[in-house]
């Protein structure tokens, strides 16, 4: 086999995967800058960003304000790149980059689909018809080096330390914030940096500790294996509910958003560690924050929400079964299953991003000591207790015999059914809500002319006549 063939078989899929992941996160990061504001506007009963317009002659494109993302980006590039005179020039410029890099690097180990078997994607029969075969539910297809066919894992790097790599990188987020605050020559920035450092170091511990219970159940550190476990059994949120909430809180704390936005606490520290930043350097902080929302959502999805799995949709097709009774079994083509799984994964990520924006607009922020108390006195003990409890229950179940195992299998399938019903319900609700015309009670808040009209038309503007 020549090197160029290896190129095609191995490196091209890798490049495509990198493009998909980076492309997704960049686009979602951009989308989130809009979504966050727009969603906030909806919650707050106002219109929100909708003014950015692309004009070409008589053609106008507003796209519900989506163009604001592009306008903001452009604005960042053309703004003066101000640097405080006494700032540490090197560190000041380095900090935004240091913030960006770990966020992007985490993407390497996040699987966004099950392993693809290229030889099973499609066959062309002798008479020219294309058929799309299905694959088996378990087991990974073998490599076929003779024809340069290797299974393609939908993950940029299949590290066997998976989640540890994530922890290692998530910790690097502190460095950027601390550097930015330290080098800015501003007391507010410095305080923001100190807060960021202590907050992130503290929540790092919880982030790690909370997941140990999950590792014990999944029995692996590889993230793709975790997802497979969830597909065969129940989603992580059902088997480790405590962990899910603790991890979610810690993940929001890591991304430094309300209610954990103390490092930038606008009303206290002006803008915290990036007070002195302007132009694209500020833009990088801003953007990194939103990409962090996306990556933390991805982590949550893979570890707790079944990753690419949909209930009852397995690698070989649709199988609705409770315990040993199978209700429906339908083989589906591998290519369709794969596409559906990838879409599912990104759909779930978008849902969690939406949820994080929702949280951001609903809560006030903590005080510094309350934040630390929450971390060390509440979340950490909970996660430790969770490890202990999981251990005991795990032992008990292991020694309980076949009956309990069968019962658990049924329980797991019931959770799958629950998820399926919930998803269906919300999708239907969403569709109905979208179609149904919205009702507005007409209490006019606006110009006095409108009010007068409502009250019987006591005023008439000359324009109306």
């Amino acid at each position, binding site marked *: 086999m020549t090197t160029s063939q290896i190129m095609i078989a191995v490196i091209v899929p890798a490049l495509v995967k990198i493009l998909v992941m980076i492309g997704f996160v960049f686009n979602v990061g951009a989308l989130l800058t809009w979504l966050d504001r727009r969603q*906030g506007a909806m*919650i*707050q*009963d*106002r219109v929100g960003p909708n003014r950015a317009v692309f004009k070409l002659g008589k053609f106008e494109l507003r796209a519900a304000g989506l163009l604001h993302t592009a306008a903001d980006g452009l604005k960042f590039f053309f703004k003066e790149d101000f640097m405080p005179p006494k700032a540490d020039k090197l560190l000041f410029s380095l900090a935004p980059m240091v913030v960006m890099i770990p966020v992007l690097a985490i993407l390497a180990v996040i699987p966004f689909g099950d392993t693809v078997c290229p030889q099973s994607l499609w066959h062309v029969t002798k008479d020219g018809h294309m058929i799309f075969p299905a694959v088996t539910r378990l087991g990974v297809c073998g490599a076929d080096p003779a024809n340069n066919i290797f299974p393609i894992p939908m993950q940029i790097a299949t590290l066997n330390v998976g989640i540890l790599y994530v922890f290692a990188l998530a910790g690097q987020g502190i460095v950027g914030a601390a550097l930015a605050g330290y080098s800015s020559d501003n*007391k*507010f920035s410095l*305080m923001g940096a100190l807060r960021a450092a202590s907050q992130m170091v503290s929540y790092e511990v919880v982030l790690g500790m909370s997941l140990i219970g999950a590792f014990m159940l999944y029995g692996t550190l590889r993230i793709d294996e975790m997802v497979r476990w969830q597909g065969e059994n129940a989603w992580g949120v059902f088997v480790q509910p405590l962990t899910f909430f603790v991890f979610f809180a810690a993940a929001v704390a890591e991304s430094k958003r*309300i*209610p954990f*936005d*103390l490092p930038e*606490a*606008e*009303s*206290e520290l*002006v803008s915290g560690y990036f007070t002195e930043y302007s132009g694209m350097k500020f833009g990088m902080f801003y953007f990194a924050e939103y990409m962090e929302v996306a990556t933390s959502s991805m982590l949550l999805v893979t570890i707790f929400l079944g990753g690419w799995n949909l209930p009852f949709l397995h690698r070989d097709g649709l199988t609705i079964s409770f315990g040993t009774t199978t209700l429906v079994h339908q083989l589906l083509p591998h290519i369709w299953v794969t596409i559906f799984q990838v879409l599912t994964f990104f759909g779930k990520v978008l849902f969690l991003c939406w949820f994080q924006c929702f949280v951001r*607009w*609903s*809560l*006030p*922020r*903590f*005080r*510094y*000591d*309350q934040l630390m108390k929450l971390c060390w006195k509440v979340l950490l003990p909970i996660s430790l207790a969770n490890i202990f409890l999981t251990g005991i229950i795990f032992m008990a179940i292991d020694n309980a015999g076949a009956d309990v195992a069968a019962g658990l299998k049924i329980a797991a399938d019931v959770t799958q059914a629950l998820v399926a019903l919930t998803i269906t319900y919300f999708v239907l609700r969403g569709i109905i809500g979208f179609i149904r015309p919205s009702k507005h009670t007409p*209490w006019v*808040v*606006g110009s*006095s002319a409108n*009010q*007068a009209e409502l*009250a*019987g038309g*006591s005023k008439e503007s000359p324009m109306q006549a």
Partner: protein
Amino acid sequence: MEPIDLELEEGELELPSDPMHLNMGPSHPAMHGTVRIVLELSGETIQKADVQIGYLHRGFEKMCERGTWAQVFPYVDRLNYVSPMLCNVGYSLAVEKLCGLAVPERCSWYRMILGELARMSDHLTCDGAMAMELGAFTPFLWFIKAREMIWDIMEEETGARLTHSFGRIGGMAKPPSPAFKELVRGTVPRIIAIVEEGEKMLLKNRIFVDRLENVGTISKEDAISLGWTGPCLRACGVPYDIRKLHPYMFYDQVDFDVPVGTKGDTLDRFLVRLQEIRQSARIIDQCLARMADDGPVNVDDPRFVLPEKHDVYTTIEATIQHFKLIMEGAKVPRGEVYSYTESGNGELGFYLVSDGTGTPYRVRIRPPSFAITAGLGKLITGRMISDVVPTFGSLNMIGGECDH
């Protein structure tokens, strides 16, 4: 072998440590009303706080001595710019007291309704801004939505949303508009609904309550000795409300309660304001029922009240009267008076001295914010830097009246 003797006293640090000086304000996101707080910090804890006011000083009292008595109204608008109508009414009452004028009943009811609407808008702004500074942006905008409704009524009545300049000596600039009662009756329940919604959002939130509870606590005695009045004093448990204890206009004829707090902390101040919004709604309801639909709003006294525009253009007497009132101003009898009303933040007093001419000899105000801001340093010393924000927010310091 001898142990190494470091000869360190207990608690002594190896590195010298000085408190960090931090300037909060005058331009800082939390310092609305341009106040400057010089903090000495040990970590996040405030060791010393020096509150410096005066960054919005514009010589209000001196300005008043230049024009006529009626020309003071635009200035009092800008005292407390979140509830200008209360300042308008307060100043009108002060001048009328000096002149010995009694306005028609309809005018008093009208003033009470407008004043209570302004009080609602004041409290909505204060509580909303406090929540916003704690990061809860959504309730703030809901409250602002409610305030917009009040301002729409004000716009309908006075023609201006913020600086109404609507009070006059001996009455109001205009009688109530025909739609006034319906508008208010329709709007107030909507405002209360919004308040309830925002309240649910905030008070059922553990983070929010934790941020406010036991923060910025002040005792009854301290509050009284500092000269606090209004919601901030009532939050300490002192039921001192000028509307109840020294009624003016018809406040003795309406039925309302004075909400008081128990601890005097930031949460109490927040809750007292929310309750007062509801009490204001009660007062407005009763006033609407008792305000006559027609009848005069201004006193029938040509020495103080401008004549009808129609008469000004058609009769010589009215023209002369108009000219004298505008050019020389209403001649307020010689004497001095102190008149005080319950404004959004507490006792708003006007001490007026007249030398018998059409120009005030001296206008001295007693702004509630001034006394309240004096207590800020004490409230935040020993607390954390994050506590400055809700504490300062709950005091509702308004630069316009504080820096008189």
